[in-house]
């Protein structure tokens, strides 16, 4: 019951975050939205585990947290350098 309530709250927030992701306006807003969305997903997985009475699947939540982090870093790298590996040198970075 309480879990369902929490899940609803998180879902609502997910919807709000999603609209920020769609609206933008800047790309950074979108990244922020995706990152925050990932956090919510971790939470909702944890809560759902309790809701269905099988809370021993938290590993999934852990993976989400991890992927969220790595994904965000990848996105940022993409934005700062324009690629993933750094084949080009970061121009005018340390200004």
């Amino acid at each position, binding site marked *: 019951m309480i879990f369902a309530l929490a899940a609803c709250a998180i879902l609502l927030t997910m919807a709000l975050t999603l609209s920020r992701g769609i609206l933008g306006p800047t790309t950074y807003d979108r990244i922020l939205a995706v990152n925050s969305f990932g956090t919510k997903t971790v939470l909702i997985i944890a809560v759902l585990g309790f809701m*269905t*009475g*099988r809370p021993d*699947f938290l590993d999934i939540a852990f993976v989400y947290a991890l992927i969220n982090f790595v994904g965000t870093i990848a996105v940022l790298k993409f934005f700062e350098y324009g690629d993933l590996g750094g084949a080009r040198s970061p121009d005018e970075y340390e200004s």
Partner: protein
Amino acid sequence: MQIFGLYNYWIVIILMMIGLYVVIASGNLIKKIVGLNIFQTSVFILYISIGKLQGGTAPILVEGVTSYSNPLPHVLILTAIVVGVATTALGLALAVRIYGAYDSIEEDEIQKQDATS
């Protein structure tokens, strides 16, 4: 009740069709790949919906639980996810190479270049 029981499938079908639309309509190669991914992911949801069982839980055997959801679709979809990501990787690699060769990833521009060369 009939309608409600199928509602889930209908949404999934709509999702699949959005994905398919993106694949067909979009002229951008990367967007096409994104569309393919949506299409495939939605098919995965279709499979998993088949596996769901009223009152069942995840198919990991524990004492005292008798009703489990169907594990077979899960196995199939694990395979299908891998296939999906493999296709994505290869498709994107091709798109990157196409960009290298044509300087564009728009289908119409590529066709134009092919026609003139």
